[in-house]
C-alpha cells in the first residue's frame, strides 16, 4: 500500500541521524577539514612524543636560525625550535578555543532556548542584555579587563566566551521561535508533554545542526582573536603560543621574515579547517533545498520549429505541441511535463486540471518562460503570435511578458514586493512595457483599480501591501496582469488562497474581464467547480501528460478517461447526510 512519494519539491528537513556523519565525510572539503583537525588534536595530545626538541630550550647559536640548520623550520629570536613550539602551541590554541566555545554555547544556547520558547518579557530582557554585549568591541574589552582578570589569558577567554554568546543566543532564539509555531509542537502540547520535554525532544533536534555549525565558526574566531591578544603581548610568555610566536617573528621581521610563515600557516589552516567543516555540515543540511537562483538561460529547442511558425487556423492564439519540460536530476533530466499538446482560441478559457505533481503548473510556467531555476524545455514547441516560444531567447520572452502574455499568481500577499507602494508596482512595469510617461501610467493604474472593483483606487494606489487584505491584493495583481491588454492570460490557481465568498467575486471579475478584453485564458486549478464556473474547455492532466481534453459540458457529462472519471467521482456531491445514533459510552482501550 505504500504510495510513491510524488511530491517534486520536498520541504527542507532535518537530516536523519544515521547518514549525517558519513555524508559530511564524503564531502571532500569536509574530509580535509576533519583530517586537519585530527592532526591538530593529535599534536596537542601527543606533543611530548612528536616534538623533536624542548619548546622552551634556548640555544644561543640557533637564534634566528634558517630552516634546516638543525631545526626543521628554523629557530626563533631566542634560539628555540619553531616546529616544537608549533606543536606545543596546539595545546594552548585548543584549550583557548574550547573555553570560549563552552562558555559562549552554554550561556547563549540556554538563554536562547528559554527566551525563544517563553517569549514576551523574558525575550525582551534577554534580547536587550545580549544586544548590549554585542555592542562591545571584543578586543578592546579584553584588553581593558586584562589586568583585572589577573593577567590570565584563560580568564580572558572565559570573558571572550561571554562576549561571543550573543551569536548563539540570536541563533537559538530565532530557531526556537520559528519552530515554536510548527504544528507538531502544537500536537506535542495537546498530547500533554511538559514544556521541558518539548524543548528536549523536539526543539533540540532542530537546533542541533545550526548550533554545531556556529560552534565551528566561533572556534575559528576564538583562535584568531586569541592569537591576536598573544601577539600584543598578553598571556604567559613562558608558554609557547602561536600568537606569541608571531610577536617574536614580528620583532625579528627585518632579520628572518621567514619565521612569520609557520605560525601564520598553522593558525590559518586550523581555522580554515573549522570553517570548511561548518560549510560541509551546512551543505549537508541544505542538500534537499534548491540551488541558488540564477538567470535562467533558455536552451533553444529543435531549430526546425521556426518553419512551422504559423498555425493553421488564424483564430488559434496558442498552439502547444508535444511539450516536454524537465529538471536536471543527477546526470539526466527528470521530465515533469511529458508531451503536452493543447490549443487555445481567441477569447477562450481553458481549464488545466490536475492533482499535485500532474505538471499543470509547470506547463503554465513553461509557456511564460518562467520555470524554476534548472528547469528547461527539452522538446516540443509553443506557437504564439507567429513565433515559437520554446526556442525564444530571454530577450524575446521579455518583450512578450506583461504585454502579450500575462500571469496571475496563486498567493496574493507574497507576490507583491512589501517594500514598495502598490501604485509604484503597477506603474513601473507599464512605463517599461508601454513606454508611456509616469503620469499617464498612474492614470491608467487608477482606472484599472477601479475596474477590478477597488472601492477607493486612490487610497489603494498609495498603500503598501501590508495595508490591504488578501482579496484586495489579488485584485491588484489582476489589475497588473491586464494592464497592457494582453492576448493570453495565464492564471495559476488564482482563487485557491482566498475565502470562498471572495473567490466567487474574483471569478466573476475574471469572467467579465475575459469577455471585455477578448483574452484567451489558461486557468490552472484543482477545483472542477471553478472550471465549470469560468472555462469553456478543460484539459485533465496526470503525471505530466494530458489524459483528456473536451468542452466543459461534455467532459462533465461524459468523461472518457478513467482518471477523469475517478476525479469527478471524488468530487463531493450533495448526497445523503449521515444520521446520528446515540452511542453507548465506549470503553477506553
Amino acid at each position, binding site marked *: 500500500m505504500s504510495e510513491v512519494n510524488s511530491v517534486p519539491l520536498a520541504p527542507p528537513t532535518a537530516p536523519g541521524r544515521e547518514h549525517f556523519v558519513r555524508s559530511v565525510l564524503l564531502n571532500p572539503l569536509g574530509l580535509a577539514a576533519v583530517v586537519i583537525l585530527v592532526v591538530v588534536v593529535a599534536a596537542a595530545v601527543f606533543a611530548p612524543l612528536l616534538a623533536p626538541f624542548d619548546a622552551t630550550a634556548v640555544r644561543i647559536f640557533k637564534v634566528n636560525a634558517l630552516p634546516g640548520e638543525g631545526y626543521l623550520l628554523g629557530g626563533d629570536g631566542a634560539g628555540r625550535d619553531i616546529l616544537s613550539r608549533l606543536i606545543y602551541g596546539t595545546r594552548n590554541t585548543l584549550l583557548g578555543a574550547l573555553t570560549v566555545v563552552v562558555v559562549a554555547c552554554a550561556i547563549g544556547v540556554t538563554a536562547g532556548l528559554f527566551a525563544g520558547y517563553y517569549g514576551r518579557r523574558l525575550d525582551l530582557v534577554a534580547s536587550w542584555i545580549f544586544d548590549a554585549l554585542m555592542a562591545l568591541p571584543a578586543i578592546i574589552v579584553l584588553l581593558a579587563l586584562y589586568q583585572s582578570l589577573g593577567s590570565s589569558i584563560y580568564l580572558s577567554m572565559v570573558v571572550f566566551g561571554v562576549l561571543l554568546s550573543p551569536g548563539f543566543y540570536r541563533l537559538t532564539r530565532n530557531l526556537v521561535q520559528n519552530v515554536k509555531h510548527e504544528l507538531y509542537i502544537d500536537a506535542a502540547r495537546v498530547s*500533554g508533554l511538559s514544556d521541558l520535554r518539548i524543548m528536549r525532544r523536539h526543539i533540540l533536534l532542530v537546533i542541533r545542526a545550526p548550533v554545531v555549525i556556529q560552534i565551528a565558526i566561533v572556534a575559528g574566531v576564538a583562535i584568531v582573536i586569541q592569537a591576536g591578544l598573544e601577539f600584543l603581548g598578553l598571556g604567559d610568555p613562558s608558554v609557547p603560543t602561536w600568537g606569541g610566536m608571531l610577536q617574536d617573528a614580528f620583532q625579528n621581521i627585518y632579520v628572518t621574515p621567514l619565521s612569520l610563515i609557520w605560525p601564520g600557516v598553522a593558525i590559518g589552516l586550523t581555522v580554515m579547517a573549522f570553517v570548511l567543516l561548518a560549510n560541509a555540515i551546512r551543505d549537508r543540511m541544505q542538500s534537499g533545498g534548491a540551488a541558488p537562483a540564477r538567470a535562467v538561460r533558455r536552451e533553444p529547442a529543435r531549430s526546425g520549429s521556426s518553419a512551422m511558425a504559423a498555425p493553421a487556423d488564424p483564430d488559434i492564439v496558442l498552439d502547444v505541441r508535444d511539450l516536454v519540460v524537465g529538471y536536471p536530476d543527477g546526470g539526466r533530466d527528470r521530465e515533469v511535463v511529458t508531451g503536452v499538446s493543447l490549443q487555445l482560441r481567441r477569447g477562450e478559457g481553458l481549464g488545466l486540471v490536475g492533482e499535485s505533481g500532474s505538471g499543470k503548473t509547470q506547463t503554465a510556467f513553461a509557456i511564460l518562460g518562467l520555470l524554476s531555476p534548472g528547469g528547461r524545455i527539452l522538446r516540443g514547441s509553443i506557437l504564439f503570435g507567429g513565433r515559437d516560444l520554446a526556442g525564444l531567447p530571454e530577450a524575446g520572452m521579455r518583450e512578450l511578458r506583461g504585454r502579450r502574455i500575462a500571469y496571475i499568481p496563486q498567493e496574493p500577499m507574497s507576490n507583491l514586493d512589501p517594500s514598495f507602494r502598490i501604485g509604484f508596482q503597477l506603474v513601473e512595469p507599464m512605463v517599461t512595457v508601454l513606454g508611456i510617461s509616469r503620469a499617464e501610467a498612474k492614470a491608467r493604474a487608477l482606472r484599472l483599480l477601479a475596474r477590478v472593483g477597488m472601492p477607493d483606487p486612490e487610497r489603494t494606489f498609495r498603500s503598501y501591501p501590508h495595508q490591504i487584505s488578501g482579496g484586495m491584493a489579488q485584485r491588484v495583481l489582476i489589475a497588473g496582469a491586464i494592464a497592457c491588454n494582453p492576448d493570453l492570460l495565464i492564471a495559476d490557481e488564482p482563487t485557491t488562497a482566498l475565502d470562498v465568498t471572495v473567490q*466567487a467575486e474574483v471569478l466573476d471579475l475574471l469572467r467579465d474581464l475575459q469577455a471585455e478584453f477578448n483574452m484567451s485564458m489558461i486557468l490552472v486549478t484543482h477545483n472542477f467547480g471553478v*472550471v465549470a464556473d469560468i472555462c469553456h474547455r478543460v484539459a485533465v492532466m496526470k503525471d505530466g501528460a494530458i489524459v483528456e481534453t473536451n468542452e466543459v459540458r461534455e467532459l462533465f457529462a461524459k468523461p472518457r478517461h478513467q482518471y477523469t472519471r475517478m476525479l469527478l467521482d*471524488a468530487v463531493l456531491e450533495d448526497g445523503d447526510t449521515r444520521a*446520528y445514533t446515540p452511542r453507548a459510552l465506549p470503553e477506553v482501550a
Partner: protein
Amino acid sequence: MDEPVLVDCRDVDTFFGTHHVLKRVSLTIRYGETVGLVGESGSGKTTLGRAILGIGPVSSGRILFEGVDIAGVPPRERRGNAAAIQAVFQDPYTSLNPSMTIEDILTEPIVARGMATRAEAATRVRALLDQVALPVDAAGRYPREFSGGQRQRIAIARALGLSPRLIVCDEPVSALDLSTQARVLDLFVEIQERTGVAYLFVSHDLAVVRHISHRVAVMRGGEIVEFGECDQVTARPRHDYTRRLLLAAPVADPDRQAARRAELRAMSMKA
C-alpha cells in the same frame, strides 16, 4: 431527549488583546457525533478548536467536557478522559516532526500520558498503523518518505493512540488532493463508526463538512450564526450568510453553476 453531552461550550469569549475573536460562542457535541464547524478566515473557527484543545486562550465562558469545565486548562493539567482529547491538524508536512521516526511520533502521546512504557507503546504502534491502513514497516521510517495523504493517516493514528472520546480536526483534508481527500474522509467516518469517537470538524469547505457531519455550525466574525442538522444547514440554510457561503462554492456542473451564480448575484444586490 435529554441525552448526556460530551462537550458543552457555554458563552465562550476570547480576546486577542483588544480584538474580540470569539463572541459568546455556544455549541454542543454529543458522544460519537461529528459536529462540523464552517467559516471563512477570521471567523474564529480555528480559535474555538484550539480553545477546546487547551492550546488557545479563553477569556470567559465555560467548556464542559463530560460535565467538567476545562476552559483555560492546558492539556498537561487535564485529567481523566479530558486528557485524551486529541487533534489532527491541517498541514501534513509540518504536523509531524521531520526528525522523528513514525514509531516515535505515534508513541509520544501514549508515553507522555504515562499510559505505557516505551516498549509497551511500541506494540501498540502496529495496531494503530493497522487502523489507518498503513503497512507495519512504516514504523521505522521518517515522515519525508510519505505522501501528504499518508502523513495525514499517520496524524490520525497518533490521535487514536490515547483512545480519545473527542478529536478536534482542523482543516484536515484542505491540503490534500481531491482523490486523497475522499479516501481520508472515508477513513474518518470509518474510525468514528468503529470506535465511537466524536469529532469537531473544522473546515472552510461546506461540501466536505456536509459529507462527514451530523450537525453543522456556521461561524462568522467570532459568532455562531447558524447551528443545526447537517442536511438542513448545508442544503436549506436559514441564515443569509450560510446561504451565501453555499452559493459561493462552485459546483462541477456548468448549468447549475450558472444558476447559482445568478442567485448569488441577486442576493448581493439585495444586501
